[in-house]
């Protein structure tokens, strides 16, 4: 099966000028997403996930690189093209409190996308809003209310409704459940999954939570200090993580079963994330890596894929396939 590539990102780079030197927020990042697929972008805060998302949507201008969406050169699209692109690419942010204007009724927030693109009469727009609310599991009558009357989970449903209003093909979800209570996260994850099936959506799903990623993603890309260090199918990644950083991330996720916790090999990384304005030479992970040797300080490892397409950027990647499929 050769799936159709919807989004392809090549050598995408963003450098911000900063007081302490240039911040290399995103450096030579390449990946593609097929139609209907979910690619998860994982990594610690500051690794460049949100910046990558904003570059892809052209909410931010790239320093260099290319983004192609459904055959269109996003980074060089003119105003008219960009307008069309904006209908097809949407985003859901982490904070459902910041994403809605408190002074407008929810109905108005949801009618806005239609109004901006001049779609339908007011009456038709109202009807669309009602069916959108229903689609995300809210009572259509709730459209008359103000954002302050909604819980965090309900607000995130509203943000999702707004993102899917114009039937986009790509939705970027930037930590969509991270700010929600644990009892609410599953509801929103289920909703995102159902919408993907019903509407044929493609997701770029950003998260720092590997358990959530394992649940939702088809493929996983791990970022560290602005670079992708591992990119693989979800199953391959979790059963056979190859980059030392991926191993340490997986190992750091605490497990609610104390018996499992006691039996795990735990890798506790020393130190903090280095500054992105002065990343280590060679492999950027080497200052925290227990496998680092001389070559790691001099040669940047390239992202290289094995025969099955499992790519890793490390001079000494883990290779052996392990029997257990749990990633623990």
């Amino acid at each position, binding site marked *: 099966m050769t799936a159709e590539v919807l989004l392809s990102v090549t050598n995408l780079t963003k450098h911000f000028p900063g007081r302490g030197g240039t911040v290399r927020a995103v450096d030579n990042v390449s990946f593609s997403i097929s139609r209907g697929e979910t690619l998860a972008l994982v990594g610690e805060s500051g690794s460049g996930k949100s910046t990558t998302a904003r570059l892809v949507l052209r909410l931010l201008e790239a320093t260099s690189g290319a983004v192609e969406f459904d055959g269109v050169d996003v980074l060089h699209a003119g105003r008219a093209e960009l307008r069309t692109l904006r209908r097809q690419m949407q985003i859901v942010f982490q904070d459902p409190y910041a994403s809605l204007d408190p002074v407008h009724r929810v109905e108005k927030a949801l009618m806005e996308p239609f109004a901006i693109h001049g779609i339908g009469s007011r009456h038709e727009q109202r009807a669309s809003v009602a069916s959108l609310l229903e689609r995300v599991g809210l009572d259509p009558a709730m459209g008359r209310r103000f954002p302050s009357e909604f819980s965090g989970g309900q607000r995130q449903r509203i943000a999702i409704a707004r993102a899917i209003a114009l039937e986009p093909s790509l939705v970027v979800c930037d930590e969509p459940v991270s700010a929600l209570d*644990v*009892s609410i*996260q599953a509801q929103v*994850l289920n909703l995102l999954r159902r919408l993907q099936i019903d509407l044929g959506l493609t997701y770029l799903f950003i998260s720092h939570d*590997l358990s959530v990623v394992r*649940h939702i993603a088809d493929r996983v890309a791990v970022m560290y200090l602005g670079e992708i260090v591992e990119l693989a199918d979800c199953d391959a990644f*979790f059963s056979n993580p190859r980059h030392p950083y991926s191993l340490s991330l997986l190992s750091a996720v605490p497990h609610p079963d*104390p018996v499992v916790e006691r039996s795990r090999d735990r890798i506790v990384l020393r130190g*903090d994330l280095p500054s992105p304005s002065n990343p280590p030479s060679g492999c950027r992970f080497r200052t925290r890596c227990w496998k680092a040797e001389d070559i790691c300080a001099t040669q940047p490892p390239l992202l290289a894929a094995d025969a099955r397409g499992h790519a890793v950027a490390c001079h000494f990647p883990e290779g052996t396939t392990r029997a257990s499929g749990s*990633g623990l």
Partner: protein
Amino acid sequence: MSDSADHPLLEVRNLVTRFSTQEGDLIAVDGISFDIERGQRFGIVGESGSGKSATLWSIIGLIDPPGSVVADRISFDGVDMLGMSREERRRIRGSRIGFVMQDPLAALSPVFTVGEQIAETIRCHESVSRSEAKRRAIEILDSVGIPDAAERVRTYPHELSGGMRQRVAIAIALACNPALVIADEPTTALDVTIQAQVLELLEELCKERGVAVLVVTHDLGVIGRFADHVAVMYAGRIVEQGPTEQLLRSPRHPYTEALLVSQPRLDSERRAELPAIPGAPPNLLRRTPGCAFQPRCHRSNGRERCCEDDPVLHAVEAEHASACHFSDELGEIGAASRDG
């Protein structure tokens, strides 16, 4: 202090914390009781608004009017804390009880160096010389894993990373060799690799210094990783309590059970649909009769008792208690959902 053998380190009996708000009286903590033993790692888990922080602040006497705290007993090392003056309580807080908050930046002063703040805490509670306090500050920073402690005592909090700041906050909490450290979501603001470092540090402190730690979190993973005893809070009450392993492997309250199965895990079966908990936590301003979890409960099936009678926390096994009328209907979480 009194003989340590015959009473727990911390004893909380029937604690009730109220806030009067414009919309009425809000009962944030509704009659909870628990004990913490010396050297124990005690966890309180619950979602936001369940009353975890209010519980901690009530214990250390930081609830100010229009909030009010009443309890049958709050005692530390056998000494009644409720009857204490503000000054007496302040003395215990910071010396015998250390406190670590979620956001260390809010807890640290921006205008003093890290070393000055630790030394100040020591000198506030013990009569030692300036140079002795400074020497101890370096020693404590070193013991919480801060590299180049002798240099770092001169840095200001904003010059440190989030993980380093939390270590400093822990160092301050430890400055006077407390018997209990209370930590309110100490790793929530941190990345997972840094969280692992901080949990490891807290674990070492318990082992090496025999300090008891009370950790509050919303993350069952942190509980499984760290706590040996846990209380699950929902809507201001403890709905389940017990030894961590037993409680998380064989939960006896539907809320605990639902939380455990609704969250994806690294080793769970990958299924299309997560068994989510419907609805949202109740409004504490408008308590309804019966079980607070009833509207969301998958076990109630609308049974009358759930809607009418307040379930009370009762023993289901030695040391394990549940506040569900039908706690005997719950057992071990299916091997499928646990081991995938």
